[in-house]
Structures are given as structure tokens and as C-alpha cells.
């Protein structure tokens, strides 16, 4: 059984119901509580959180550990309660990405990561020190894109 969703960006998309994430408290400041996590292109490290309630709302996200070797999430006791007992490797971590023309200008929000566990998602305020709201995404890793290469700095 697949689910058909409408997306302004991607058109009509068939998704696996397993990719649907319920955000009981929404994403901070945005409307809606149901999103599908879409992997549109296996060649990019980016996924999309597509709102199931607003076809025009989709946010690119990525796994921060691929880009930031020192990245950690620390949550408040209250957020730990929301997430449920025995937090561990069962939690998938994503951060939102603000895209730009140049790779150097891509930034990721390390301050408010999105934690997903058993189909439920929560955007939390990261209590770990030094987590930037707009961390340059390609500052640490070296990547190749479309045949050209780009490095830090």
C-alpha cells in the first residue's frame, strides 16, 4: 500500500506510509503536523520533509553527522520525556538546510535539530554548546559536485 500525496515541488508523489512522520507539536513556527520524508535523489545527501497538509510546504533536511563530525544533540528533560524512554540509536537526527546559489552559502540549523523516533518527530532546541542556528554546511567536508570540486574555505 502506498500513499499518494500532493507536492507543489514534486507534483503527485507516491510514498511509502512508513515515510510519514507525525509531529505532535509541529515544526517550530510552521503549521501542520504530518510530513513525509522523501528521498528524491540518491546522489544528494538531502531529503525532503514534505507537508501532507500544505503541498507548498517542503523543507530540505540532512543527516548532520555527515557534515559535522563534532555534532551532538543534548535535549532538556522535558524534551526527553516527549521523545520517550531509553533514547538511543533508535532516534534519527535531521537538521533543516537553507539552500543557496553557492555551496559555500548553504547553512544548516544545528540549534534546532529534528529527532524522529518510531514515526514521530520533534524539533527540539539543542542544549549542546556551540550549536549554530546557521552553520555553514560545507565548512568541514570536501565534496564533489557536477564534476567540479569544492573544499572548505
Amino acid at each position, binding site marked *: 500500500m502506498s500513499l499518494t500525496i500532493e507536492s507543489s515541488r514534486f507534483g503527485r508523489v507516491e510514498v511509502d506510509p512508513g515515510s510519514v512522520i507525525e509531529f505532535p507539536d509541529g515544526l*517550530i513556527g510552521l503549521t501542520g503536523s504530518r510530513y513525509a520524508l522523501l528521498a528524491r535523489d540518491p546522489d544528494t545527501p538531502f531529503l525532503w520533509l514534505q507537508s501532507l497538509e500544505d503541498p507548498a510546504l517542503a523543507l530540505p533536511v540532512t543527516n548532520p553527522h555527515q557534515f559535522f563530525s563534532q555534532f551532538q544533540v543534548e535535549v532538556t528533560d522535558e524534551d526527553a*520525556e516527549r521523545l520517550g524512554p531509553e533514547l538511543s540509536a533508535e532516534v534519527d537526527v535531521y537538521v533543516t538546510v537553507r539552500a543557496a546559489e553557492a555551496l559555500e552559502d548553504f547553512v544548516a540549523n544545528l540549534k534546532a535539530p529534528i529527532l524522529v523516533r518510531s514515526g514521530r518527530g520533534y524539533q527540539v532546541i539543542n542544549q549542546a554548546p556551540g550549536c549554530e542556528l546557521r552553520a555553514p554546511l560545507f565548512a568541514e567536508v570536501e565534496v564533489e559536485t557536477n564534476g567540479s570540486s569544492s573544499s572548505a574555505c
Partner: protein
Amino acid sequence: MLRITRKTGERIMLGDDVVVEVLEVRGQTVRLGIDAPQSLVIYREEIWLEVKRENEAAALAASAPLPSVRFKGAGE
């Protein structure tokens, strides 16, 4: 906006199950204690605002196609 004057140790109720207590007042700083159901998420306003803006910006900036990226050093 409703304005209420409270002393240290006094509380206000928001509905039946949210309690805000003035714990300490020192100069320009007020320390509040909040008792609320787990379903109610509490943020400092400035952090909530900056994350909201960043979420909106991420959704808007995404009209640009995202690049295909391969990590150097990753297995071929």
C-alpha cells in the same frame, strides 16, 4: 495585553493546569517557574522566533535545485 502585578512566590494560572510562579526578582531579571502538562512545549521567545524564521527560510530557499554532492573520501 492583560497586566498582572505579582510578588515573589506568587503565581498565576493559565487555564486549569498551567502555573507560572515568580521565583525571584533581581534588578532587570525575573526568574519564572512554569508547571505545565508535557504536551505544552515552552520556548524562550527569541529562540522560538529565530528557529521559526530559519524553518521558513529553509522552505523558501529550497526553490533552487539541490546539488548532487559526493563526499570525497567516501567509497567509490
